[in-house]
């Protein structure tokens, strides 16, 4: 079996590209400001967004931009989330560690984001998706290898669609490549072959 | 079935340029099966001639000569070709496989298209009608003829139908690499045949029945029922376009391979030959048998009034 891409979204260097077409772009905006302006451009209201850490915000943005182009009526458990990520939650880990090093009281609101899989939780909550979750850490992104994992989730019958790809955040560096894929299988009842 | 009358026939083959229904003297001891070039300049402008490959020249020579003899505007131009413009294809393939070729000349590319023949004919004749090219291997011409019958049934009156295939030395090389017998390689042929068909004006010779079947359990039985259905008697000449095909049916028979060589659309020239036999009234029918692939076969029956 193989998979086929339904939609894609890339976010890097202040530009959101959806299905190959630039959707939103700003120059010289620091990452935290970009996360705000790109959210505003989406024109949705989701106050929880502002509680998230940068990794979750980026993953959330990418998912929202990607889903905007597709109005597939997903059932609540047919979308598997499968993410590759490079530097785990180290960006928020450092914040938590800094509080410890400074002897300041640590914050549960920070600590909860010291797990990289939280971004899948945020996406699942927003979309009411109860499907499979998988997060793999690796130093870089390779679409073919990701497609292999997505293919496995779909071909093993665990999901009809797989959403995911690469989300990586560390300090002011960020990169996102998300894909929504489905099976490229054709269901047949041919008996003459 | 709508009767289709044959008014004109022109062929180019290893036997030379052949126009009309008079049976020429046929040599059966040929050692070479390359089509003999006629004087193309009589109908093709010299400027265009220079860049044309042999298959285009042959097809244009036949079709333009036929068109010159008539005032008719074709309702349809239908061509069958097995391998199309091999020379141009080879030329462009060679060009692009050379390392760092850069920008290539487009001539070979644009002429390599299989429908160059039908397109060039329409272009030369300024014909805006139906224009079709069939390329089903050894049945390309049979399928083109089937299309002509279908279009006649749908109301077309005058149809230009033809076939063409060309030989390039690469075919011999490939034949040797594929361990073909030397005699078979020598017999790789080429040629073109074009016909003026009319659905409403009788000419004496007509297509009585045509059948192409890709799936046939028993070919001999198929031939038998076709012949019976069409009330074909012993006064029928069987023209076989396939090498090594043996049919024992008590009819006179001839193998086209020995006359014009083997090429995918040599059933075109078989029709021309059939017309000549019918013109001489030696036979009541001519049946062309093409069993070019293992399972499939084509049967075309001609009669005369």
């Amino acid at each position: 079996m193989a998979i086929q891409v339904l939609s894609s979204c890339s976010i890097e260097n202040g530009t959101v590209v959806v299905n190959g077409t630039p959707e939103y772009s700003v120059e010289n905006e620091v990452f935290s400001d970009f996360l705000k302006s790109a959210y505003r451009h989406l024109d949705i209201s989701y106050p929880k967004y502002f509680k998230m850490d940068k990794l979750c915000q980026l993953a959330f943005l990418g998912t929202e931009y990607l889903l905007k182009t597709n109005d597939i009526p997903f059932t609540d458990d047919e979308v598997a989330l499968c993410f590759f990520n490079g530097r785990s939650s180290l960006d928020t880990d450092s914040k938590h560690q800094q509080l410890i090093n400074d002897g300041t009281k640590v914050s549960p609101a920070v600590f909860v984001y010291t797990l990289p899989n939280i971004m899948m939780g945020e996406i699942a909550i927003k979309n009411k998706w109860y499907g499979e979750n998988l997060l793999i850490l690796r130093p870089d992104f390779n679409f073919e290898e990701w497609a292999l994992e997505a293919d496995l989730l779909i071909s093993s019958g665990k999901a009809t669609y797989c959403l995911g790809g690469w989300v990586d955040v560390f300090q002011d560096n960020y990169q996102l490549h998300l894909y929504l894929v489905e099976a490229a299988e054709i269901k047949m009842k041919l008996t003459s072959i | 079935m709508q009767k289709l009358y044959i008014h004109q026939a022109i062929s180019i083959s290893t036997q030379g340029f052949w126009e009309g229904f008079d049976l020429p003297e046929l040599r059966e001891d040929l050692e070479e099966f390359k089509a003999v070039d006629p004087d193309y300049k009589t109908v093709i402008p010299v400027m265009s001639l220079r860049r044309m490959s042999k298959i285009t020249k042959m097809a244009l020579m036949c079709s333009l000569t036929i068109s010159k003899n008539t005032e008719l505007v074709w309702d349809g131009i239908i061509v069958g070709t097995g391998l199309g413009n091999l020379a141009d294809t080879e030329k462009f393939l060679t060009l692009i496989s050379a390392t760092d070729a850069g920008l290539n000349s487009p001539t070979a590319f644009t002429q390599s298209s299989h429908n160059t023949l039908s397109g060039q004919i329409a272009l030369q004749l300024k014909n805006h009608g139906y224009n079709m090219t069939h390329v089903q291997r050894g049945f390309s011409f049979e399928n083109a003829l089937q299309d002509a019958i279908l279009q006649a049934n749908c109301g077309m009156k005058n149809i230009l139908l033809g076939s063409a295939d060309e030989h390039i030395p690469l075919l011999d090389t490939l034949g040797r690499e594929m361990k073909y017998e030397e005699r078979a390689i020598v017999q790789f042929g080429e040629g073109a045949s074009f016909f003026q068909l009319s659905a409403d004006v009788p000419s004496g010779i007509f297509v009585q029945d045509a059948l192409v079947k890709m799936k046939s359990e028993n070919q001999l039985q198929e031939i038998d029922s076709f012949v019976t259905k069409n009330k074909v008697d012993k006064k029928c000449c069987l023209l076989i376009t396939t090498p090594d095909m043996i049919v024992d049916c008590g009819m006179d028979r001839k193998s086209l391979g020995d006359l014009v060589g083997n090429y995918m659309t040599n059933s075109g020239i078989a029709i021309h030959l059939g017309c000549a036999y019918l013109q001489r009234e030696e036979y009541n029918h001519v049946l062309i048998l093409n069993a070019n692939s293992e399972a499939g076969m084509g049967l075309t029956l001609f009669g005369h009034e």
Partner: protein
Amino acid sequence: MAGKINVFLGAENVISPLGWGIQETFSNAKNGRTGLKELEQPFPGITNLFAAKFDDASFSTDSPIEEFAGESCRGSLENLNFEHQLDERWLFVLSTTKGDIIHLKNGEMDRSNPYYLMQQLQKELPFESQGKVISCACISGLAALIYAADKIAADQVDHALIVGADALSEFTSLGFESFFALDSEQCKPFDKSRKGLNLGEAAASLVLSKDQTLFQTSPLRYLGGATSNDANHISGPSRTGEGLYRAVDKALKYSHKTADQIEFVSAHGTGTLFNDEMESKAFASHGLQNTPLNSLKGYFGHTLGASSLVEMAMTMQSMRENVFLKTMGCAASGTETERNVLTENLGMEIKIVLKTASGFGGCNAAVLIENQ
């Protein structure tokens, strides 16, 4: 999902403060010992912590996790028949939530990345295929197990070594403390008076293979497994247990089993009020309220990314020895739905076991295994 290819699992191993190796750990647990204790001044800034921690003297480097996780892997591999080629048909998976996070204190970013830990562990392994790190909070271990089993079933690999490891750190201790999720005494999973969890550190490993003969001791069979999300809250479990219910539901489906065929449940059971309640509800929804169940957090504390593999390894050992461990710390079942929580060790011959885990981010996992 196990298709035509059967997936077997065995060569389980645990390295924990309760014992060095699965035999010692299991025997200590069977004898009612726990690895949990009151630690005085375990980290600067923390005066006391009830947790399971290795003796600092056990390690010779500044990366204890590398040592105890590596030791666990070596132990697992020792239980294999080595005439089998170790080649690119092997998959190595590390499941961890925080890896070697202690180095973050000194700003050593690279070493703090779980991927680094995997690379370090891989150096000691006799096969070279690129290892994977799965980090899905507290379900990491089961997520890795399911991932590896699916890869074998899909014929992408033949064998997999999976190891789960997390260290007790100032980082996580202070974090959980800030949530008021810690019990300052022995945790009491599924008990009426439960107050919270204890943290711990450990490593556990096991081997999955399509080939039974790889194992020196007869392996168990992996039936099926699944993950799912609560889609409810990132740090609190769903009140209804919806996500866990669905994970179990899917695991049953992929295993071609029904809930009534489950004879024993190895639960997550952290000892927090909400988690245990949520689990009970989810199990009850499957009609499992009378199925024997335990939580092993009372022996090891919550070892995060390692926990579900530690518990899986221990449960496998139980299935081999026909002894199922009591829920250390639980005196009387106290969740809303009446449950058959083991409060004494029980000798039973069990064929099919359900193992579950739930974690932050709303994730849940369920796996079914079978004693052949």
